């Protein structure tokens, strides 16, 4: 299998703040590689460098062996970027948007028309091709945003949090479209998200980034192995006292306890054995339990294990 993307010791700073800190990873041709991390972790900056929008202060990125520093034009022909924000012309129609960006990729005449029709079909927007983008729902705009990134049949499709702020139905459609593109045409995909479920659903291999540093990478199984066989008991309460948390941490069989906004996460090697004691302990501290669930090891618990915080919850105590 050939290497599609090589990110080598990438560093980027904004003033004194390090946005990307010595990040290295590689993506093989035909795989979907996920970059998972909370907001502000450095995902978008990494994507901006890979897509030639920003220059790193050190390190390099190679796309099919072409450097973003020495051959950015070659790289631009190989990639298709789907930015986090909807980057479309709202007063133009879906067709006009696709045709414009297609022309920027050098497509003309019948080739352009055929490709626009194809992309409209992929994104499910053929019926609305002549409507202005400003009349579209958020989900439709997101689909068209992806469609623009597909216009040049990219060897590497880069999606930067493409499902932010849309309804579950549109999200499902987008994820299935990406999966289908990868399966049918072998398109390599670099996908960033802070939604663990999306990365878990789509990606073959995953990198976890936090504070600009890639803290772990591997297959989903490899990452989950970092957590071991531990399960997570997630408990929602009406209120949490520090004394209750301290008591849980002392409990036999409990590995880690994290808490944020009335949600307690208990990492344990045997959820069944400790659950009744955890519930009894919380009751003794007058913490009213609203709900609880036991989770198998997943990327969320990996992130929790590695950073001590949730992907979307911010720092936990």
């Amino acid at each position, binding site marked *: 299998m050939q290497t599609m993307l090589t990110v080598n010791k990438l560093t980027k700073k904004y003033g004194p703040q390090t946005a990307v800190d010595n990040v290295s990873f590689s993506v093989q041709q035909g795989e979907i590689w996920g970059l998972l991390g909370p907001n502000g972790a450095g995902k978008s900056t990494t994507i*901006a460098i890979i*897509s*030639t*929008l*920003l220059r790193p202060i050190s390190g390099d990125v190679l796309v099919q062996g072409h450097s973003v520093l020495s051959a950015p*034009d070659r790289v*631009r*022909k190989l*990639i298709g*970027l789907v*930015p986090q*924000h*909807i*980057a*479309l*012309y*709202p*007063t*133009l129609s879906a067709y*006009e948007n696709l045709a*414009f*960006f297609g*022309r*920027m*990729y*050098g497509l003309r005449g019948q080739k352009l028309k055929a490709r626009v029709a194809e992309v409209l079909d992929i994104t499910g927007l053929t019926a609305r091709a002549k409507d*202005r983008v400003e009349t579209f729902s958020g989900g439709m705009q997101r689909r068209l945003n992806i469609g*623009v990134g597909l216009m040049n049949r990219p060897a590497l499709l880069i999606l930067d949090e493409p499902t932010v702020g849309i309804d579950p139905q549109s999200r499902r459609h987008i994820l299935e479209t990406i999966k289908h593109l990868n399966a049918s045409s072998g398109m390599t995909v670099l996908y960033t998200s802070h939604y663990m479920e999306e990365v878990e659903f789509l990606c073959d291999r995953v990198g976890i980034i936090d504070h600009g540093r890639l803290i772990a990478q591997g297959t989903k199984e490899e990452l989950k192995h970092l957590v071991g066989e531990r399960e997570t008991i997630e408990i929602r309460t009406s209120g949490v006292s520090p004394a209750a948390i301290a008591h849980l941490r002392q409990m036999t069989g409990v590995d880690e306890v994290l808490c944020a906004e009335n949600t307690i996460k208990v990492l344990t090697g045997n959820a069944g054995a400790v659950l009744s004691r955890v519930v009894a302990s919380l009751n003794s501290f007058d913490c009213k339990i609203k709900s609880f669930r036991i989770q198998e090891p997943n990327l969320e618990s990996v992130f929790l294990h590695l950073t001590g915080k949730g992907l979307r919850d911010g720092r936990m105590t």
Partner: protein
Amino acid sequence: MYKAFVIAHNKIRKQLRQPLLFLVMLALPLLFTFFMGSMNTEGARRIPVFFVDNDHSRYSQKVIDNFKAQPCYRVCTGSKEEAVKQVQDFKVQAAFIINEGFGEALEANKVPRVDVIRVRESGEFYALTGFFRSTVNKVASNLKIADLALAEISQAKDVTGRAALIAERAYRSASEAWFPQPPVGLNIQSYSSGKQTAAYNQMVHAAIGFALFFVMYTVIFSIGDHLEERKQGTWQRLLTLPVSRRALLGGSLLGSFTLGMAQITLLILAGKFLFGVNWGANLPGVLLVITAFVFCATCLGLLLSNLVKTTAQLQAVTPVLVVSTSMLGGCFWPLDIVNVPLLLTLARVVPQSWAVTALEDLVWRGAALGSVVPHILVLLLMGTLFFGLALKAMRWGT
């Protein structure tokens, strides 16, 4: 090149999808031209006239002093060479060269010869020469009356009881001293391009001034559209496509320039057919000046939009800059009526003054294209300077 045209086309299409700004920028100058052009401001405008005094007699001095005392004339004096240059540069309406012997001829009741250099025939010119003739007549007559009266009084040892008789004799003497008509002969030399020109009127000035003023808004906001594109992310997206920065910038400039040219062309046509504005006989020259001005304004817009960070900031800065430079540059009133040297010096550093002067020279002074080439070059130079500074200030990435 193809991609630059596609980007330009996209910019124009986007603008036309939201036609309100374009229509407002088209309607406002027409309204202003109509209202301002209909105002009679002739009284406020002083006609520049040049005198070369080679006689240095009390007669020639009195004639020049008489002109200086008139509120409707702005008098300059100097050598014949200066006079010719001023006329050729359209700085003065005409120059009168008062030759040596002017005073002696008047003393001897002979007709003196005065040379006149002019730009072209016009109502103003004939009014000027008529006023010159009557002034010479008046000055000469008054001086003779004064001399005769003085002589009469000097001869009288005792005028008591004979005052009425003396006055009557002086009156008769003065009447006898009047010249045959006309009192002065004028040799007229023309320095015009020989083309038919439009007569000056406020409507022409308003049409020129407001067209230039409002087209600046159109091109500045159009080129500043990249700020909005940055906000919506399309600018960043374009930077990740295989499009050269030259094509991106060139296409953007071309789109805004085309919109500006379209607007000003429509304004010229509307001025002609709605208000009867005569754009003169040198339409290619007018178009060249306008092209250079729109280029300059587009580059200024590019610079301005790179010095601010948001569309809101651009919207705040643009009116201040455009209004103040347009006032300085003579878009709202003719620079002829400005007599503050500092303001006239400042006017030379704003593009509007070069465009207004060149257009007025072409439209109603009948200047040949060659005489406005310096104006066109200055506008192109200013545009290139703005473009260079804009490139320096350009923030390409995020």
